[in-house]
């Protein structure tokens, strides 16, 4: 839930990267951290296990300048994607204003994407929010793997699996290379800020 500080003319917004384990959520934040070092005043916080899997969350605050005369501070989070971490995943989702769903394009991960999206739907309901109305952007990640001959799901298949009813913006991306990472971020920031614009008077 965004917080508007009239005294500082500042708005704080929470955007959460969601999706199946190993899909590339943490990699998205790492790329953003590397790219926008100059706009990021603190270190990237990560709570993870030995194997580099997210245990609780990653956190990255960025300043994006002024919107409607308000200084906008965007707090980026990732959830732990592994199925067993649902309790912590739900905690991270609390108060989210916008969501990036990072799906894994690898053909073998097809079912995992669908289950994770279902899980998002349920966890949002738990906070009385609807997956249909919350600002949401899809990212179909790891498209770079095509070059290595790894079987990938086509854009059309992923759209059909995940986005046929929701009809949200979707990007093909590669978080390791950086393709469309910033485009995804810009899109979700724009949608999220638009959703609260009326409250910034």
């Amino acid at each position, binding site marked *: *839930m*965004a*917080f*508007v*500080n*009239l*005294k500082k003319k500042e*708005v*704080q917004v*929470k955007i959460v990267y969601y999706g199946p384990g190993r899909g590339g959520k943490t990699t998205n934040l790492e790329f953003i951290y590397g790219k926008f070092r100059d706009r990021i*005043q*603190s*270190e990237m*916080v990560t*709570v993870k296990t030995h194997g580099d899997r997210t245990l*609780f*969350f990653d*956190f990255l*605050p960025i300043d994006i300048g002024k919107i409607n005369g308000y200084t906008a501070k965007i*707090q980026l*989070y990732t959830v732990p994607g592994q199925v067993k971490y649902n*309790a*912590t995943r739900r*905690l*991270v989702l*609390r*108060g*989210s*204003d916008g969501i990036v769903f990072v799906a894994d394009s690898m053909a073998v991960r097809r079912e995992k994407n669908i289950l994770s999206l279902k899980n998002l739907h349920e966890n949002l309901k738990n906070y009385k929010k609807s997956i249909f109305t919350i600002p949401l952007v899809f990212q179909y990640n790891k498209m770079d793997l095509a070059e290595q001959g790894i079987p990938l799901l086509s854009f059309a298949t992923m759209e059909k699996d995940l986005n046929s009813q929701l009809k949200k913006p979707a990007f093909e991306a590669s978080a390791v290379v950086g393709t469309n990472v910033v485009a995804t971020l810009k899109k979700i920031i724009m949608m999220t800020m638009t*959703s*609260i614009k009326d*409250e910034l008077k």
Partner: protein
Amino acid sequence: MSYTLGQEQLDGIDEILKNDLVEIGAHTVFLIDMSGNIIASLDDGENKHDIYSLAALAAGNFGAVSAMAKIVGEGEFSLLFHKGKKENIHFSKVLTEFLLITLFGNDLSLGFLRLKVAESVEKIKKILEPIHTP
């Protein structure tokens, strides 16, 4: 969805944090909401911390501890406190949506600090109660 606090309310909160907590020797005090947003923060000018990271971790930590309390059949654990060699950290819930976090050194006793935190929480409640958080 968002909620807004105005100049007067935020000044009121700053005042409480300053007079009740920083003045008695707390190093850093901040008020956050459960999403991890920072509503107000104040320090003694000597002890600077990365407040944004602390807020995110504190909100997560508090959420995790509350969830544990529920699992073991406690509504809420009443004392949330981490003790370090030099720096200690104390958490206190304010209404249902907010959290007051105090960092302090060993020159301040936990008992006294808890008393002052409890007083501040009561005052802050009066300011935040009318706020509608959707």
